[in-house]
């Protein structure tokens, strides 16, 4: 083994690595927020919607969860183009990621909704809460609070999976790496650096979501216990 490692060749590119990392974070943040909204709506629809909505959501969730993200990205990117609309790679990446993570979120939130005990609903009813109040305070918020750890891991996985969108040349971290390695011929070093950046990003996302949970779920912070 006579390979000479040369990380110095990558130094001039630090700015592009940073740019790529920021774009990855941005992409994942948008996909996380929109995917969470989509997934929660789907979970509500599947739990309490009319029959056709339940069927529709179930189909959506099963189809997305049983096909690879890579193929979904291709279908969105090329498929929309053949329908006559022009979308950029970044936009297609966001759409594919939102559709993908929405299905996973829906399953997680549904588990949370199902875990709300019937006696809680009856108690809320006895206290004279309105239907919307019951849904918001007794069903939805505690449900999401309970499954928050699972959602956190799902969104870390989403951040890592966003690397797949480099295959349609969305300009995130992996795409940046692909370009830099073909500029410098330092492929191995480039991917080691990018691997370390992803590792750091996954810690950042995890800690960020944990802090966010502390801020949002006041009850858990004050009582120091889960529900």
């Amino acid at each position, binding site marked *: *083994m006579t390979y000479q490692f040369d990380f110095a060749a990558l130094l001039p590119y630090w700015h592009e690595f940073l740019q790529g990392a920021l774009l990855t974070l941005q992409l994942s943040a948008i996909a996380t927020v929109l995917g969470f909204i989509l997934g929660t709506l789907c979970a509500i629809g599947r739990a309490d919607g009319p029959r056709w909505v339940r069927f529709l959501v179930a189909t959506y969730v099963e189809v997305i969860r049983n*096909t690879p993200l890579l193929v979904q990205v*291709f*279908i969105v990117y090329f498929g929309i183009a053949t329908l006559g609309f022009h979308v950029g790679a970044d936009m297609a990446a966001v759409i594919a990621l939102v559709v993908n993570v929405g299905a996973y979120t829906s399953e997680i939130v549904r588990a949370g909704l199902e875990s709300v005990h019937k006696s809680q609903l009856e108690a809320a009813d006895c206290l004279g809460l309105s239907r919307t109040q019951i849904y918001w305070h007794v069903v939805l918020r505690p449900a999401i609070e309970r499954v928050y750890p699972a959602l956190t891991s799902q969104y870390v996985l989403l951040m890592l999976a966003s690397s797949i969108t*480099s295959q349609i040349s969305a300009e995130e971290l992996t795409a940046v790496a692909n370009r830099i390695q073909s500029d410098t011929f330092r492929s*191995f070093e480039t991917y080691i650096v990018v*691997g370390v950046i992803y590792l750091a990003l996954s810690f950042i996302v995890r800690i960020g979501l944990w802090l966010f949970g502390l801020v949002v779920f006041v009850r858990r912070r004050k009582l120091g216990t889960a529900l």
Partner: protein
Amino acid sequence: MPTFSAVHLEFIAFAALWTIGLSAIAFVGGGIVGFAVALARISHIRALRYAAIVYIQVVQGTPLLILLFLIYFGIAIVGFNEVPAIIAAGIGLTIYSSGFLAEIWRGCIESVPKTQWEAAECLALTPWQRMTRVILPQALRIATAPTVGFLVQIVKNTSLASVVGFVELAQAGKLINNSIFEPFTVFMVVAAFYFAICFPLSTWSRSLERKLNVGRR
């Protein structure tokens, strides 16, 4: 301009076999390595335990795509030229699945009640006997559902092997699309093949889970 035809369908169906083959390699390889890592993760030797934690964190904290690139270029550095794509893809997916299976199985092993461990020790079983006769048979029951569920993830992630030039379903779709440019049809067919492989596994995993939970309901 040729259109999508039976020849293309045959090509895709053949590629689906490679997807299944690669998944099998990843599952068997990942299972062996992952089991060793899971045991290391609960070992009494501190260094071994920490090594396993670091391994799991690194594998779970980096994208599979980057792992595959590293192996692809790393193999060339170690001095092998012309390594078949299936080896590079197989190694990458083995490492990936071992990192996740180790954590799943650790959870299953540790969820066997502590009294079982203590009882085995009281009966003067050796650590080996305790593991193979008492703990693992019980852990296995808990582990089947999540393991089958993870199998779905493995099948889906073999689609990334296309980046190291392995012709499986996704790559077959790309190749056909390059020649006839009907992306929507081609990738819909590819997606249907993946669905046909993954959906039965998902359903099976769910039914296993339900059976396991019968006692608790």
